[in-house]
Structures are given as C-alpha cells and as structure tokens.
C-alpha cells in the first residue's frame, strides 16, 4: 500500500514539476518574443529564417503527400456511407469541412512534431551535453532568446502556412476521388467545396495550428534543456518530445474544438 502511495506521490511531483517547467519556459519565450524586442533586445532574424526553411519549407512535400492521401481516404469512407442515401454530392463537403476544421491542423502538427519537435530536442540536448548552453549563459547571452525564440517564431509563421497547404492538398485528394468515381465535374467539385466551407471553418483550423505550434516548440525545447546524462539522455528526450507533444496537441485539440463548438 505504502509502495503505491509512494509511487503516486513521486509521479504527481514529477508531473507538477514538468508542467511547471513547461509553464516557466513558455513565459520566457513569450517575454523574449513580445516584450524584450521593445526594450532594444532585437529578435534573431537570421536564425529565424533558417528555422523557417528547416521546419516549414522542408516539410511541404511530406505534409502535402500525407494530406492528399488522407483526403482520398476521407472521400472513400464518406462515399461508402453516403452513397447509400444517394448523397454522393456531399462527399466533397465532408472532405472540405473535416480537412479545414480538424485534419489539416492535426496532420500538420503530427508531422511537424515528428520532424521538428524531435529535432529541437536533439539539437538543444546535444548542446546541453557538450556544455554549449552553459557557454552561452557564461557570455551573458540568454539561451531562450538565442535558441528557442527563432524556433518559436518560425513555427508561428509556418504552422498556419503548412495547415493551409494541408487543407488544400486534402481537398484536392477528395476531389480527385469524387471526380473519378462519382463522375463529378471539376466545376461541380469547386462549387460544392465553396458552398460547404465558411470562413470560420478555416479560421478555427488556423487558430488551432498556432496553438499546436506553440506546444511543439515548448515541449521540444523543454525536453532538450532537461537532458541529463550524455547521448542516451538525448535519445530519451527526443522520444518523449514527440510523445508528449503529440499527446498535448490532441488534448489541446479536444479543448479548442469544444470551445469552437459551444461558441458557434
């Protein structure tokens, strides 16, 4: 019994300190992004652009391909049910709404967490192990400002871009299926999509993508900073960066979808 209590206690303490660490890193990131630049401590534009290429431009092919497939799969599954009611016309609407409201941001977040969240953790973890982070601190240079803020800004810009791209690729995938299998014309596909989508579908998806981007950067960098014990520690942190950020992304997804549902 006392063993179970001890386990629960230890686990709770660890959880609280993890959440506290994330919160304190978030506060630092927000400070160095939105407050410090107005006090003469400028942002690092060069490394921000570099990160934008790494996390944004380089993810375009994989995000596009996965979204295209998901669009096709959605259309297939939708048609399977809806053709029974002769509602094949609405397959396009189903794909459009699901992609923009839900799957576009989610697929983008999962791909970016896997590609970049892990890379953030590995990069910062290796720097931590080789004392490079200490070296920055010793020079009086803030490691959050130099290493985390560029990544955060890059995702702030790139997550919505990638999400829009993913929306488009998914809708195209769905359209390809309806045109091929249900004999819709291209014009019909465009009209059906236009009629189905409202601005709110797209904007809620983009808001979510910003939140997901913030989660991925914070978790990836926090895991990197908290690496202990050499190469093995870097590996462990990289893994948990991906697992924790995907978990938190989906948790945030539930919360935001609920908020959007009840405020509609």
């Amino acid at each position: 019994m006392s063993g179970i209590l001890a386990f629960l206690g230890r686990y709770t303490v660890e959880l609280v300190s993890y959440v506290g660490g994330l919160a304190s890193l978030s506060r630092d990131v927000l400070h160095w992004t939105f407050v410090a630049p107005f006090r003469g401590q400028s942002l690092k534009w060069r490394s921000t652009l570099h990160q934008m290429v790494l996390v944004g431009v380089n993810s375009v092919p994989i995000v596009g391909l996965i979204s295209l497939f998901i669009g096709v799969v959605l259309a297939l599954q939708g048609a399977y049910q809806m053709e029974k009611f002769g509602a094949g016309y609405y397959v396009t609407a189903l794909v459009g709404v699901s992609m923009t409201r839900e799957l576009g941001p989610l697929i983008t977040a999962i791909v970016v967490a896997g590609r970049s969240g892990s890379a953030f953790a590995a990069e910062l973890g290796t720097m931590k192990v080789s004392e490079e982070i200490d070296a920055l601190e010793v020079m009086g240079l803030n490691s959050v400002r130099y290493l985390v803020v560029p990544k955060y800004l890059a995702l702030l810009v790139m997550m919505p871009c990638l999400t829009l791209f993913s929306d488009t690729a998914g809708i195209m995938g769905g359209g390809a299926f309806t045109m091929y299998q249900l004999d819709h014309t291209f014009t019909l596909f465009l009209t059906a999509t236009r009629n189905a989508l409202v601005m709110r579908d797209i904007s809620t998806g983009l808001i979510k993508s910003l939140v997901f981007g913030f989660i991925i950067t914070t978790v990836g960098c926090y895991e990197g900073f908290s690496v202990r014990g050499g190469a093995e520690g870097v590996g462990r942190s990289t893994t948990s960066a991906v697992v924790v950020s995907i978990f938190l992304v989906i948790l945030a997804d539930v919360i935001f979808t609920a908020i959007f549902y009840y405020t509609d």
Partner: protein
Amino acid sequence: MSDDFQGPMIRVADLVTHYGERQVLDHVNLEVPSGETLVIVGGSGTGKSTLLRHIIRLDLPTSGHVYIKANDVCHMPLERFNLLRRKMGMLFQSAALFNSMTAEENVALPLRELTQLEDSTIRIMTRIKLDLVGLSGFENYLPAQLSGGMKKRAGLARALAMDPEILLFDEPSAGLDPVTAAGIDELIVKLKQAFRMTIVVVTHEMASAAVIADRIAMMHEGRVIAVGTLAEIRANPHPRVQQLLNRVPDREIRDAQAYLRTLTQPPS
C-alpha cells in the same frame, strides 16, 4: 564595478550545495586576490567543478555566498550579474564551441552580441585572440575539424574575447595527451604573465598545478582541506593531501561482515 577595488577579487563564503539529497559542497571558504592564479585540485567527484560553476553562477547554492569584487553573485539580479560576466571568461572541459560556427565566428560571437563594434574591428580583435592561442590560419575551420587541443585553444580564445579580468578553467588538460596538455599549461602561464588576470583552474593533475599555480587549494569530499603555495601543500601533513600528492590509491576496505551485508541486503 570600480577599478580601484582593493579586497579579494573572488571570495567564497560558507558555500553549501546539494545535488538532490547528496551534499556536494560542505561549507567551502576561499579567497582569490586580484591577479592571483589559484589551482583547485582534488580527486574526481570532490566538488571542484561544482565550485567553479558556482563562481560564475551556472549553479546556485543551497546556502552561502560567492562575492566577485564584493558583489554577491548568487543573490543579485541576473541582468546585473550578466554585466559582471562580461569581464569573466570560462574555458569548459569540452571546450563547448558552437558546432555550427567556425573558430573565428565562435570567438567573434561575444563581441558581435555584446558590443557595438564595427565588423572590421571585430575581425581584427578575433584574429588577435586566435593568434594569441596559436591558432592563426585556422579561422575558417569548424570545431569538428579541429583536434582536442586546438578546440581547447579556440575555446580559450573565445573566453579571452572580451578581455576578461577573471578567467576560469574547468579541467584544461582533460582528454589531452601529456604533450598537448603541457602546451595548454604553458599557454596559461603565458597569459598570466602577459595580462594581470585573476585565474582559477580546476584540475586533478598535480604536475599541471605545480606549473601554473601561485597558490593551490586542495579539495576532498566537498571541503577545502588545504590552501597554500606548492611548498606549503607539500609540507602539509594531512593524509589526504599526501595521498593526492603521491598518487596513492584508496585502500580497499574489506570488512567481511559488511561486505556480506551489502550482497545480501534486499533492495530498498
């Protein structure tokens, strides 16, 4: 930071530190006068590197104080201490060069970020520092292309970039062959003679300490057990001091009963 400051450059007062439950530093007291080279020696895990990290506030103590020119390092606002840090340099055990930057960019980084100097001035200053440590011609090499000894030299050039008054070395000879290590020792002596810097070196090599040190502080189990010149340390009767001087291994304790207990004890 007044330049006519008279007291000790670095003063450590009653410093106590824990890593988790384990006590790493046990009421450490130490003074380093301006311009002196103090070498901290001791076995592995005796807290020497931890002490060095406290002097430059990479770790914060459980209790006690570190004063640099009478500024309480651990209890002043970080922004203010960062101003003080500009006059401090540190060479890390692994040199800690930024791997994505060339040797020259590494040395130039503090100048670029902390001063308003022109690019051309920064370039000249960087070349001077690299030349000082014997790395002219290696400006455009990445850290991965440099040998262990050269990395340390580049790390030292970076530590010297801001013309520090205090220079800290964490195991400067770790991981180097004896000849290269001697080269680094010679470089430290050269710097000491050329500039009036206060230097603190952490090492476990008595030979290296004998070459560099004005005074030696010997640590054991988180405490400073002896401080003095090389001659004074050699004359110190403390058994641990003599053990470290003469490289005597710890005698293994073989109490049969205790040994059996450690084997049969159930895991806690």
